[in-house]
């Protein structure tokens, strides 16, 4: 099979690495099955929000760090493709692969709680938004170090406080903190997971849908703008 575009190449490489593919697809289910079936909705939503955010952030960060080390990033600079387009294609494909990875868990939620179907579009959109933003965070972190391990560390240093501020770990009541949480995509994912799992979210389904959509569009725009910063930083 031959790939002529950036997104085709990403998918081809992913499909060719069969063992990694199997592990990647099985990993979320290992957490997802017991959580969706047996855990209270709040705990399941907390863990799944963290899991989805981490899956998004780690994949692109590690890959881009390896590519910077091997000299591939330098080769990208000689291609007749704008860095913005290149990064959008790369990260959106990577986020799509991540979405495929978590899709079985999302399907399981739908099967277990069919009556919560009004939350499904919001859940899909906010998951996609968090995955793309996670990939972008990983991509930016990859410019800070040549070591994949160090890049993971930078990602976690930023990600964990953001998850806290998004109200994932504790219910936020302070108006200022509540307002801050609404500026973070993780809060919409958390709310939609709570809704889809039959819990008690603070937002309505359409509000979460709107938030997820906004962050998805914003993340795509930001990815395009950060292309040069990520791929052409010396």
């Amino acid at each position, binding site marked *: *099979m*031959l*790939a*002529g*575009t950036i997104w085709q*190449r990403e998918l*081809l*490489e992913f499909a*060719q*690495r069969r063992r990694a593919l199997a592990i990647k697809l099985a990993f979320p289910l290992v957490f997802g099955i017991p959580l969706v079936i047996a855990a209270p909705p709040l705990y399941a939503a907390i863990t799944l929000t963290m899991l989805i955010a981490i899956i998004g952030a780690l994949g692109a960060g590690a890959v881009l760090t390896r*590519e910077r080390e*091997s*000299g*591939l990033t*330098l*080769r990208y*600079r*000689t*291609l*007749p*493709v*704008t*860095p913005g387009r290149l990064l959008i294609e790369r990260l959106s494909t990577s986020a799509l692969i991540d979405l495929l990875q978590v899709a079985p868990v999302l399907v399981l939620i739908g099967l277990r709680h069919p009556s919560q179907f009004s939350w499904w579009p919001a859940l899909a959109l906010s998951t996609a938004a968090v995955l793309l933003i996670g990939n972008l965070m990983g991509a930016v972190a990859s410019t800070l170090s040549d070591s994949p391990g160090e890049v993971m560390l930078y990602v976690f240093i930023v990600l964990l406080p953001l998850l806290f501020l998004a109200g994932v770990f504790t219910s936020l009541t302070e108006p200022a903190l509540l307002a801050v949480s609404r500026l973070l995509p993780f809060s919409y994912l958390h709310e939609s997971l709570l809704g889809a799992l039959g819990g008690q979210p603070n937002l309505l389904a359409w509000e979460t849908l709107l938030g997820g959509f906004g962050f998805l569009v914003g993340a795509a725009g930001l990815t395009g703008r950060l292309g*040069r910063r990520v791929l*052409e930083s*010396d």
Partner: protein
Amino acid sequence: MKADTASEPSLLTATGLTRAYRGGKGVFDITLKLAPGEVMGLMGPNGSGKTTLLRLLATAATPSAGQISWFRNANPHDPSVRRRLGVMLDQPAHFDKMTGYQNAWFFAHQFGLADELARDRLDELFRWSGLWDAREQLVSEYSLGMKRKLNLVEALVHRPSILLLDEPTLALDYRAELDLIERLQLLSLTGTAVVLATNDVHLAERLCDYVIFLHDGRLIREGHVPQLLAEVAGSKEVQLQVNSPIALESLRALAAVEAANVEGDTVHIILARGANPAQVLAVLNGTADLVSNMRVRRPNLGDVFLKLTGVALPAVHR
């Protein structure tokens, strides 16, 4: 015979080009012009700035000062500029989990080649480079030489107007090197300009019209190859393999010695026109067992560099 390209408009011009790195490395205030069909060599010892300069010309790095214009366009990010450049960087970077052909196919398409054209050209280039039988092999299984050949294929496939090659013969066998020289000569005849960063004096003498010598990031001398070689015409290079250190200063003090330098266990000495190598041995008199081997040969571009800087270009192992 190649036409005189001096009066033709330049494909590439660089003015006051500077790229400074921490620790004082980089390139400083480089000015050059490249005409269609011209083959230009960038020569200098390791760390002299060849790779940095090539990366700047290839749009892979951004200058801290100065300007480059490709085809009268000074925007390095413009896809229409990059589409006309064929680049082989020093690191043969590929997608290791894809086959050689999959890699080349991907890069060919990035440069806008349609399927049929890409297939025709890649088939021809894979056969030419000797990679045909290994085309379905993963790049992670390729040797360094194969990876560099694949880089060459990828640099050539879209028939660029300017080829920028960093040490193109490194890790290539002699047959592949000859094939590459022949191909580059042909491309040059059809108007493709070539910039080579190399320490291979034989390659530079066979292929280059014009050579730029870099030392500590600065352009120290440039000229047409025959013009540069004329500077050492009539002199000889003596290579002495020595068993223990010798006093270079006593050699340099000789009127017959134009330049002398030590590289590992080999002493490189450029003798002035008409000088006799025996004069050198006379200085080393009384230390007969010091010299284990002696070679006298006609001077080359490496000797011009040695004469200019007192530093020998690194030996290229064939």
